[in-house]
């Protein structure tokens, strides 16, 4: 006899109640992001933006843009790093990144030569952060060598450290580490891959 077993299994009763209501989840997610922003507890908001170099992940704290990442950097992994290094209160919430996304789209369309965004440099410290603050001094369409940047940052011998600072730039594209090239004029390494660096330099040279 299966009667008792059958009586205990109530799963069939709830078939009409959808397991996943996609429309409701989307509505509730938007509502949560808005309420969290208003309550001041959305520590990290993120979205992606499509570019000729693939989808870029953009993340911002209440202070400003904190992270830009290429697909090859693994967006899921980047979000985990943000959760551990900034705050686990991380939500997909495009509104805070509207301005950044718009400026990045304009940049890739060749209609923008500089970014006017509040930045949060908390993911970079010490000498690396010092290097990042000097990067925007290289004008759009121009390049500088690692050695020149080391000199600008006040440590002419720290050429290798400048390379590391660029490789660990949490805000590629916006903080233009792609404008730092090797002394022989070749592009050199890049967080988004060498091809991405060449594309950015070509884009800027053409504009």
């Amino acid at each position, binding site marked *: 006899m299966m009667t008792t077993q059958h009586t*205990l299994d109530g799963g*069939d009763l709830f078939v009409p*109640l959808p397991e996943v*209501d996609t429309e409701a989840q989307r509505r*509730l997610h938007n509502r949560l992001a808005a*309420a969290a922003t208003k*309550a001041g507890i*959305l520590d990290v908001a993120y979205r992606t933006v499509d570019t000729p170099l693939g989808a870029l992940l953009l993340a911002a704290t209440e202070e400003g843009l904190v992270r830009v990442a290429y697909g090859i950097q693994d967006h899921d992994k980047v979000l985990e790093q943000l*959760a551990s290094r900034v705050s686990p209160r991380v939500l*997909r919430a495009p509104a805070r990144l509207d301005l950044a996304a718009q400026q990045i789209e304009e940049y890739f369309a060749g209609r923008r030569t500089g970014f006017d965004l509040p930045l949060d440099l908390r993911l970079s410290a010490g000498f690396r952060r010092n290097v990042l603050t000097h990067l925007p001094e290289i004008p759009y369409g121009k390049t500088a060598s690692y050695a020149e940047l080391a000199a600008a940052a006040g440590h002419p011998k720290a050429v290798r450290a400048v390379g590391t600072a660029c490789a660990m730039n949490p805000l590629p594209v916006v903080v233009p580490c792609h404008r730092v090239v090797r002394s022989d004029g070749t592009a050199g390494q890049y967080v988004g891959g060498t091809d991405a660096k060449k594309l950015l330099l070509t884009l800027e040279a053409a504009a």
Partner: protein
Amino acid sequence: MTQEPFELVVERHGPTVLRVCRAVVGPGSAEDAWSETFLSALRAYPRLRAGSNVEAWLVTIAHRKSIDHVRAQGRRPVPTGELPDRGIFTGIPGGWERDLWSALKELPLKQRQTVAYHYLAGLPYADIAEIVGGTPEAARRAAADGIATLRRTYLNPQLERDRQGAAP
């Protein structure tokens, strides 16, 4: 201790918590209860102990938020006759908002809660007892009674009508 981004918590557990809220407070307040649950969870999330059962934690919060809505519903005048216009709900006509919820809302609150926490969230009765109070055995009995009633009133409404019709 590294916590995963809260976005993943919403993705993974949002749908189940919505089913629980719908079953406990009904279509009119379920989304409010869900929203309050997840806002409260987001606030507390950085302090959640490593290794915690995230779904049980969310159901515990949803339980508290739902009680507020059930109390508010109790204070509102009881609507008589037909359900409100189905147009305010997103479901299909005759979906859960109509038949399943009208059967659920007739259950005593504790039965509705234990049924939802066990059959929708999959929590063991020991966890449910900690959320609703009482012993695990009492929680198990409340859920069994709730399921038995739902079988009669929801799956076999004709039988129920016959039964009531036969009553003096």
